[in-house]
């Protein structure tokens, strides 16, 4: 695990010392801020609804969740493979999983920083005399971080598969959008109620998993487990793909 920690610190430094991360944060925060102020006005100043809107209750949130992770993870393997840095990394005395884990945590941390900006909005509202309910805010940020981790792991797996960062970003975005769209397959196929596929698709509904607990200020082990397990699965896939680079 010390290997993962080393990779994590290296990646995090790399991210925060690259203009790309700051540009992404700048755009995302401006985007988020715009819709937050709009929601405050739209909900007639209702602070609780506005905070829910900011963290998981709006299309803008899901758009950021789909787009940002691929942009952060696209370079993590494909760029390193192109420049030859990956060869050094793979021969370093760290396991493949530690490499994936370190990179995943770094990308997730950057997104967690983005979502944590909600606390600043909360503080501003508190300063204006209408403090939000902090517990749903905390659970919302935690949930948003878990969702980001899931999509970052997808991005990492695809980045490990591709040799071009742009291609990796493109496919990862498609994959993320596909994951979010899984529940609509049910409607497309007009599955009968209670059919195993429909039940399975229901369980794979990322938006519901997120909104049913984190957004409303509840912590549900079912939903936490869902995000942890599937992040783990895609990290495992990324590890196997990375390992395959040795012999393919």
């Amino acid at each position, binding site marked *: 695990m010390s290997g993962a920690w080393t990779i994590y610190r290296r990646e995090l430094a790399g991210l925060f010392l690259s203009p790309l991360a700051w540009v992404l944060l700048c755009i995302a925060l401006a985007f988020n801020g715009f819709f*937050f102020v709009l929601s405050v006005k739209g909900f007639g100043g209702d602070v609780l609804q506005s905070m829910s809107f900011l963290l998981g209750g709006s299309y803008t949130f899901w758009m950021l969740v789909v787009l940002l992770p691929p942009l952060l993870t696209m370079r993590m393997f494909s760029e390193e493979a192109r420049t030859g840095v990956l060869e050094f990394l793979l021969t370093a005395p760290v396991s493949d999983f530690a490499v994936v884990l370190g990179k995943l945590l770094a990308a997730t941390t950057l997104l967690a920083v983005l979502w944590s*900006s909600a606390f600043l909005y909360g503080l501003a509202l508190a300063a204006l005399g209408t403090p939000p309910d902090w517990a749903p805010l905390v659970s919302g940020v935690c949930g948003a971080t878990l969702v980001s981790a899931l999509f970052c792991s997808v991005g990492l797996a695809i980045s490990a598969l591709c040799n071009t960062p742009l291609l990796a970003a493109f496919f990862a975005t498609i994959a993320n959008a596909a994951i979010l769209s899984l529940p609509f397959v049910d409607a497309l196929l007009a599955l009968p109620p209670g059919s195993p596929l429909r039940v399975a698709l229901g369980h794979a509904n990322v938006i519901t998993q997120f909104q049913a607990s984190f957004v409303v200020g509840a912590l549900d082990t079912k939903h936490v487990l869902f995000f942890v397990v599937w992040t783990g699965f895609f990290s495992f896939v990324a590890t196997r793909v990375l390992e395959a680079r040795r012999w393919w």
Partner: protein
Amino acid sequence: MVVREAAGAGRGGTLAWSRSSLLLQVFGVVGLVFLGAVLVTYLGTLPGLRRRFDLTAVGSNTLDERLAELVEKLPEPVLVEVFFRPFDYPLTRVGAQAQGRMSQLLHVARNQFPEKLKVREHDLADVAKVSVRMKELGLEEDNVVVVTRGKHKVVLRLLRDVARIDPGNPLVESEPTLEAFRGEEALGVALLRVSIEETPRIVFTVGHGERDLFDVEKPLAIGRLHSALVADGLRADRWDSSADPQVPADARVIAIVDPQQPFSSAELEVIERFVEDGGRLLLTTTGNAALFGQAGSPEALAGRLGIGARAGFVAQPIPDGFGGWRMGLEQCGTIVVAGTGLDRRHPVTESLWRADERVGLPNARALVPEGTRPQNSVLVDLLRSTEVSWRDLPQSGGRGDWRFDQRGEETGPFAVAMALAFPPADSRSDAEGERRAARVIVLGASDALSNDILGRNRDFVMNVFNWLAQRDYRLVIRPREVERRVLDLANTNALTLLNVLSFGVLPGLCAVLGVVVAFARRR
């Protein structure tokens, strides 16, 4: 690396085979891990392994303690089906508010008790599918929540049972508002009702010219009442008291609806004994002027219980549309009871009073306490006519003129429905070991149960039978306040601060840091 060395040795076929074999192994392992992930996700949904913690300050993700206890004790899962459609103007906004709160409540309930409550929200846009289901459930309207357990079913109407609306005033452009949301209470009562196993039996007397229990076509028959009772989980059938002098053993309620012929004294004796032993009785006055008040009439039976019926019909003037009142019309004979005319505490009328409902009573007789009542009895006026009503007495031709005659006619208010409860004569107990009190309702208008008016009086009539059958479950849950923290938007400083923070400070800080990083890297 090993593979590449092998390739260097010139064994191309082996290399391809090794790669394919490794690839298959990788796919196999990934597949196994995928199945493992599916399994763990599934295990995480199992009620025994799942935990949910409410982090909100006001517990908005947790059901009220009493409701939670009730759900926990449910013997088997209950299905809650939601049939919501947007309301028409002017109820659009307030209706959406009520729908949203009910959906949220059901969502909380489902998440807290996933093994006990199954919630199905029907998409009313899918007309074909939904109409089939609505037909199966016998629903005639949307914006209802149906709670079902096996054969037991309770229908909750959104703007009656769940939410109370203040209609506002269109003249001063005040929109309807949500006055009270009692979703938890309504859901609790519905769950109580569906969780009771028994289906109480109601017997309607026949053989004296009573209304037909199975005819749903004739306006004055009571076939629709029969259907409504069955749909509500009650059993309703006939009892010919002249042919079979014993009250059926499992009968919980006897209903006597508008007999045209007198009962024999032996029959009345049997019915009276049934009531005295803790039985339940619904009695309507007769529409037969010749029988009214005679020996063997329902009025005579009511008189034995301390309730008298007065001759004539209660009438009320009709608004003429110009701020005045009109008399002398046939419609004056149908009185409408609402608001203060409904007893606001009795289980039969409390929900009607709360929902601001009306009860229509054609040809209603005035009822009065009269004679000796059973010991320790409680008599309540369920329905009372207004102060402008009067008791219209028959003229020489036998019919009233629907005009108030100061000389011989009294003015209201008059009781037109009364409920009587008293402890049974002996100390016999029911199945639960509780002493069951006798309950009697005397209704001054038999037409109130008829096919052509049941739609209007359905809630009242169902409350009557549910009270008599001892299914008047009451659960008091204080309506939950919606937590609102509202920023004063009139305060322009507040919005400016938010704007500056959202568009200026945070993105600006990131932009500056980005530029600094870019310069630092370049140098």
